[in-house]
């Protein structure tokens, strides 16, 4: 292959193509120019946003092998999923469901962005995705094969299917993204950490375009059985911030976004969905499952400081809002403390009551609600809200979507393990 036009003689290394240019202030602005998703509410962004506006619930009876042996029978499962509608036989043999979801979402996002990664752009572009369970369906199916069915041979693609970086790798191959590519696993905060790192890489000049978000496909017998053990799951509904909440409900799916250098997006006339303006992460360093209000608050205030925002600038927060007793009261305490008097004026909703807890992909699906708030002036509701809880005394946009113009929004994610990640977006 001959080097591209770099002004250098043939045979020399085309270094300028892989050396990104820095802005005069050393930091670049980062914008979102494409979005894609598949989740229980729909197989694309428009269907998902319509569900957010309607306050539609994607949680229903689970449907997969051995579900009758589970004490938790509900989840936000992707319905009507036929991999053969999107992938050929050989691809399906190589792609676990979490990879399939990530690829589908990535294709939608890239199509919306209008980007073509051939040539130099591919060298300056990458992918960072979050997942907690990776190819958990593949683990589950093959353990069943060897332990339950007693077979001594498994398919040769088991390892490349189940590895947590499989989705990121296949996305990089699909589009020719030859820059930074990796996977982040921070449980329920995975995709917020992933998107935050993508933001930092573009801002610092390490990459020009990043595909980022997350994917999860944990709704199988082993996946739900493991969660049952912790006794934090609801048997009937996800009711974030409601006094009668009784636990989380698992979901599945993916969200993938195109994060792009602002100057590049503007120069090519791209439709900019939102600007990413801040990100912060913190660790509670305290308990493996119980959240800390101080740790969450440090991530929230860190994101505001990173973005150069005052608390009063924030109009909406997409909450972590799992619907567990512990998370929701801790999160509300963190927000109340971080925002002071402004906590009573801002809106905070949890969309998990609609799409379930998508675990390592949840922050990515939830970023869609943030973009909807900024672009359409519609705040997604917290559905399933029935009884006020004095420990969650914020405006949680109960049950019905609300029209409201907001300039700046936050998205919270607080993971098991005490790992917190908060992203700030601004209207463009």
């Amino acid at each position: 292959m001959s080097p591209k036009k770099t002004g250098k003689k043939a045979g020399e290394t085309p270094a300028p193509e892989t050396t990104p240019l820095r802005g005069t202030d050393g930091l670049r602005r980062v914008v979102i120019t494409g979005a894609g998703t598949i989740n229980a509410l729909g197989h694309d962004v428009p269907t998902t946003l319509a569900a957010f506006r309607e306050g539609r619930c994607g949680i229903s009876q689970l449907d997969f092998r051995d579900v009758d042996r589970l004490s938790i029978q509900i989840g936000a499962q992707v319905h009507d999923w036929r991999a053969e509608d999107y992938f050929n036989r050989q691809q399906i043999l190589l792609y676990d469901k979490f990879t399939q979801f990530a690829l589908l979402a990535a294709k939608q996002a890239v199509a919306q962005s209008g980007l073509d990664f051939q040539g130099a752009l591919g060298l300056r572009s990458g992918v960072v995705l979050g997942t907690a369970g990776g190819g958990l369906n593949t683990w589950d199916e093959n353990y069943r094969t060897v332990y339950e069915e007693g077979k001594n041979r498994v398919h040769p693609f088991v390892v490349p299917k189940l590895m947590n970086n499989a989705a990121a790798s296949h996305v990089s191959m699909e589009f020719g993204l030859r820059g930074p590519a990796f996977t982040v696993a921070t449980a329920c905060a995975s995709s917020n950490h992933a998107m935050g790192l993508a933001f930092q890489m573009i801002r610092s000049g390490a990459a020009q375009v990043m595909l980022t978000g997350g994917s999860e496909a944990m709704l199988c017998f082993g996946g739900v059985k493991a969660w049952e053990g912790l006794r934090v799951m609801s048997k009937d509904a996800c009711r974030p911030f409601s006094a009668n909440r009784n636990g989380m409900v698992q979901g599945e799916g993916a969200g993938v976004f195109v994060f792009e250098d602002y100057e590049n997006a503007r120069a090519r006339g791209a439709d900019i969905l939102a600007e990413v303006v801040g990100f912060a992460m913190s660790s509670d360093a305290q308990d493996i499952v119980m959240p800390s209000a101080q740790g969450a608050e440090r991530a929230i205030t860190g994101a505001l400081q990173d973005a150069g925002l005052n608390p009063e600038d924030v109009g909406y927060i997409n909450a972590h809002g799992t619907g567990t007793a512990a998370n929701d009261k801790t999160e509300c305490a963190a927000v109340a403390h971080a925002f002071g008097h402004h906590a009573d004026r801002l809106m905070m909703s949890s969309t998990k009551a609609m799409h379930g807890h998508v675990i390592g992909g949840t922050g990515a699906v939830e970023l869609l609600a943030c973009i909807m708030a900024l672009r359409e002036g519609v705040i997604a509701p917290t559905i399933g809200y029935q009884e006020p809880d004095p420990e969650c005394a914020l405006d949680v946009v109960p049950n019905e979507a609300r029209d409201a113009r907001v300039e700046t929004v936050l998205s919270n994610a607080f993971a098991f393990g005490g790992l917190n990640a908060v992203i700030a977006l601004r209207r463009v």
Partner: protein
Amino acid sequence: MTDQIRDRITAIIAEQAMLEPDQISDDSTPQDLGIDSLGLVESIFALEEEFDISIPFNANEPEKSDFDISTMGTIIAAVERLVAQKAA
């Protein structure tokens, strides 16, 4: 039979709390014994395994569960009830 159940439950809780069985009384609450939420879930799992029973317990609403975990006395009574139901 009942005394034996009581002793087995006490042994499980004592191990979780890192105490001697005679340091645990019917009035002891999980909090008194230094058992946190994760320790409680672990204890309930151990009791299920020991007696081959299924204990209805949701960490989000412990007070609403049919299984009363407020003191050692209530835990022992609830386990005895589940063991009796299983035998019936």
